[in-house]
């Protein structure tokens, strides 16, 4: 029986405002331990492909790092952590591309969809059918998506690098467009599988009206915690606090 793979990109890079390893250490610890317990391979891409200006594009090189051995693959951003008891997401799907809808900031999304439409002028992306790329589960048959996006980058490197500074993201919207263009079968996962914008959703809170249980809601009620959507300077501290609180549960 073939194995499955989870991978992340953890690269320190001059274009990043904060050093990746400062916060990704908590990501790696949680995923490494969780994957080991479930007999899932875990791969960290920690070298930057110099043809890309930003390390966000390194995730699309995954098929250069692996052969054909993995049937199903999971991509997780390096600012995520997994709950120690999270079920196996590879049991949730067959051949679909799985991810979580993102309605957290419709202004940002609206602008981003508009900006990146120039590369997909034939496609119309519905803002309510828009997904977050920080956690994706797919299969090796989806390699074409990765190849196409790298090709798109190579052809449009200058303008894509420029647009990355406009405030509408770097690759997430392109990935949404590419899946739409290729008519890829999508399976929407519940937000428990990519709990982003936790500050806005008030998932850092706990039930302050009841008893002594001060466990934050995101730990109690979700599987993959995505530490994004709040002031980025707080990320390392929040991920460290989380690990200090629950790191002992991973065994």
């Amino acid at each position, binding site marked *: 029986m073939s194995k499955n793979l989870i991978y992340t990109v953890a690269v320190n890079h001059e274009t990043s405002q904060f050093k990746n390893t400062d916060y990704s250490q908590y990501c790696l610890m949680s995923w490494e331990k969780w994957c080991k317990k479930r007999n899932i391979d875990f791969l960290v891409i920690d070298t930057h492909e110099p043809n890309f200006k930003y390390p966000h594009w390194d995730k699309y090189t995954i098929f250069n790092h692996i052969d054909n051995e993995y049937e199903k693959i999971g991509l997780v951003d390096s600012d995520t952590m997994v709950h120690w008891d999270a079920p196996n997401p590879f049991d949730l799907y067959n051949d679909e591309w799985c991810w979580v809808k993102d*309605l*957290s*900031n*419709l*202004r*940002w999304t*609206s602008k981003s969809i508009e900006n990146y439409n120039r590369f997909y002028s034939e496609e119309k992306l519905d*803002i*309510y059918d828009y997904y977050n790329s920080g956690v994706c589960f797919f299969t090796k048959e989806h390699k074409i998506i990765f190849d196409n996006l790298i090709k798109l980058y190579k052809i449009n490197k200058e303008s894509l690098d420029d647009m990355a500074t406009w405030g509408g993201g770097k690759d997430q919207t392109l990935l949404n467009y590419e899946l739409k263009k290729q008519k890829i079968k999508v399976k929407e996962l*519940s*937000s*428990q599988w990519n709990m982003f914008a936790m500050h*806005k*959703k*008030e*998932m850092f*809170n706990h*039930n*302050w*009206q*009841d008893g002594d249980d001060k466990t934050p*809601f995101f730990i109690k*009620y979700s599987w993959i915690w995505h530490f994004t959507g709040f002031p980025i300077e707080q990320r390392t501290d929040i991920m460290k606090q989380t690990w200090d609180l629950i790191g002992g549960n991973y065994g």
Partner: protein
Amino acid sequence: MAKNVVFIIAVKKDGQLKPEYEIGIESWRRWCKKNDVELFLLEEPVLPMNEMHIIWQRYFLFDIYDANGIESDQTLMVDADTIVHPDCPNFFNETEHKYCLVHDDGSYDWILRGMEHYSKRVYNGKWFDYTKYGNSGFQIVNNSHRDFFQHMRDFYFENIEQINTIQQSYGIGTDQTPLNFNLTFKEIDVKLLPYKYNMTCMPKKEILAEDMLYTKLGWVMHFNGLPDKDKSVPFWMKKTFDYLW
């Protein structure tokens, strides 16, 4: 042939309805006319409001219809602090004749505290998937839900002390959380419609602003979750109505 109905609670307080609610209702009046849908305003409570919170009284819907000789196909029960867009499609065509809600993720603090309190104090520790939790300010129902509405009322009177205690002690709303629990445990087939049909907590989505972006992204704007609501809700509802209608 039975028509579809939009049902709004419009019970006056001290002889008048809030002006912003009048505005919301007017938008629905116009939309209903355009789409051949009946508008029904509940202007008098069924029971004294000190016996049953007015919000809970919407679950008398079918009794009200029977008493008034109204034959309905589907009904949208919508809060008065909403404004419908003139171009809003006829959402009754998207229901598959199921019980329809829109997921609410505006404040999981509020939602999860409410679920935990009700679970512990009323539902014997039972739980349901909070990612399917719907906002009760936009509910589409039909005649197949008569028994469920009876259940909601029975539930209310059987648990009135606990419900009142929870409502008063924890500030977690009225019917919304019990509605979600009861829909789950009664195995009602619920369809969640997209956010554009009940745009709650718009400031959190970063769309409620002078450029009126929110009016371009959806159809039913729900003016809840706004800071300084006594001033901001009337302001934004009037501005939106004037802009759209």
